[in-house]
C-alpha cells in the first residue's frame, strides 16, 4: 500500500509524543561527533570494515557496507559533507550479523569514517576515500 498523509498521521500519533529534536541541533564537526560517540576513547583500527567504491559514479547514490562483528552500534560520518553525520546503526538481539548496507550522498571527493562501539565497550574505526565524479556537461 501507499501511505497518504491521513493514514500515517494515525500511526504517527504515538511517535509524535516521543518525537525529539534532531540530535545534533547545531552543526558539529566530524571530530566532535567522534568524541561524542566514543567519549574520547582510543579506537582500534581492526574489528570493523567499511566498504565503499573507490570512485562513485554519482555522489547522490553511493552504496556502502559496514560490518563489525560483535558491535552494538556503528556510526558513519562523511567528513567532507556540509553536515558530516550519515547514519548510526544500532544492532538488536536478533541481528544475525552486525553489518548493514545502505546508499548515501557525498557532496564531493572525501573520506568516510565508520566507528563501531563493540560489546566490551571499546571502539574501532575504519576509513575509506571515495572520489566523487564531476559531470561533463556544464549545466
Amino acid at each position, binding site marked *: *500500500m*501507499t501511505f497518504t498523509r491521513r493514514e500515517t498521521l494515525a500511526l504517527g500519533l504515538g511517535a509524535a509524543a516521543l518525537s525529539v529534536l534532531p540530535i545534533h541541533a547545531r552543526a558539529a564537526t566530524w571530530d566532535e561527533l567522534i568524541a561524542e560517540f566514543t567519549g574520547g576513547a582510543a579506537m582500534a583500527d581492526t574489528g570493523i570494515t567499511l*566498504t565503499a*567504491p*573507490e*570512485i*562513485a*559514479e*554519482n555522489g*547522490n*547514490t*553511493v*552504496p556502502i557496507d559496514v560490518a563489525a562483528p560483535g558491535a552494538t552500534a556503528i556510526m558513519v560520518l562523511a567528513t567532507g559533507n556540509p553536515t558530516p553525520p550519515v547514519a548510526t546503526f544500532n544492532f538488536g538481539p536478533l541481528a544475525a550479523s552486525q553489518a548493514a548496507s545502505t546508499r548515501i550522498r557525498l557532496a564531493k571527493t572525501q573520506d568516510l569514517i565508520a566507528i563501531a562501539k563493540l560489546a566490551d565497550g571499546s571502539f574501532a574505526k575504519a576509513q575509506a576515500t571515495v*572520489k566523487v*565524479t*564531476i*559531470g*561533463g*556537461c*556544464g*549545466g
Partner: protein
Amino acid sequence: MKRLHMALLAALVSASPVLADEEAELVINGDLHIVTRAPAAPHLEGHLDEVISGWVFRSDETQALQMDDFDNPGMVFVDRAMEVWNTVDGSEGKSCASCHNDPAESMKGIRAVYPKWVESAKEVRGIPAQVNDCRENRMGAKPWKYEGNEMAEMEALITLQSRGMTVDVAIDGPAQSTWERGKEIYYTRYGQLELSCANCHENNFGNMIRADHLSQGQINGFPAYRLKNTKLNTVHDRFKGCVRDTRGVPFKPGGAEFTALELYVASRGNGLMIEGPSVRN
C-alpha cells in the same frame, strides 16, 4: 567479490575515472538474461557496427543496481503505478484494469514496438500519448503531464511487461517520414554549443566527457531511474536535458519532434532488449 574485482581493476587502469566492466553480462534476478550487445540494424550501416546498451557503460555499482529487482529503486515506482492501474479515475468510472485487465497479459510486447504508427490517429505515437488517449477518451480523466511522475511510472509498468523482449520498431511504411524527421534531428547540431546527438553518442561513445562515460544513447532501458535525479525519467525527459545541455531550447516533451527522435533512436536499438525500468547515472 564484485567489489574486490573492481578494486583490482582500479589499480590496473587508473587512467579511467569510472570503471565500467564492459565484459559484464546483465542477468536480472539471477535468471533473466539480457542481450546488451547486438549487431547494428542494416539502416545503421556506415554509422555503427554494434549496438550496445547503456548498462554496459555504467560503473560496477550502478550496473549491480539493475541486476536485482529489489536493489533497483525504479521498481518501487512500478509498484505505485500498479496501484494506479487498478484505481478508477475519471467520469466513466473506469480504471486501466477495467479494459486491460492484467498488464502482464495485455501490455506484453507493447514497449518493444513503440513508438509506432497508430492508424486510428494517423500519426506515430509513443506510449505516453496512448496512455493519455485512454485517459481522456475512454476514462474521461484528465491527461497526465508528459514529464510528470505518474506518466513515467505508468510507462515503466507497461515497459516492464516487455522486459527481455527484443526491440523491433518499424521504420518503414507509414512511419517512414517520421523516422526520417527523427534522423534529421539526431544529426542536427543544436544550441550554442552546437552539439548533435551523434557528436556524443555515435562518434564518442566509450570516451569520457569529464567523468561521464558516454554511451550510445540507447533508449531500450527507459524509463530509467537516474541516480542524478533519483526518479524515473521518460525518454523525452532525457532528450530535453540533453538539448538543454547544448545551451539550446528543447522541443516540447510529448510533441512531434521528440516523438520522431524517439522513433529514430529506438530504431538504433533494434536488436537490443527492453530493459526498463533500468538504472542509469
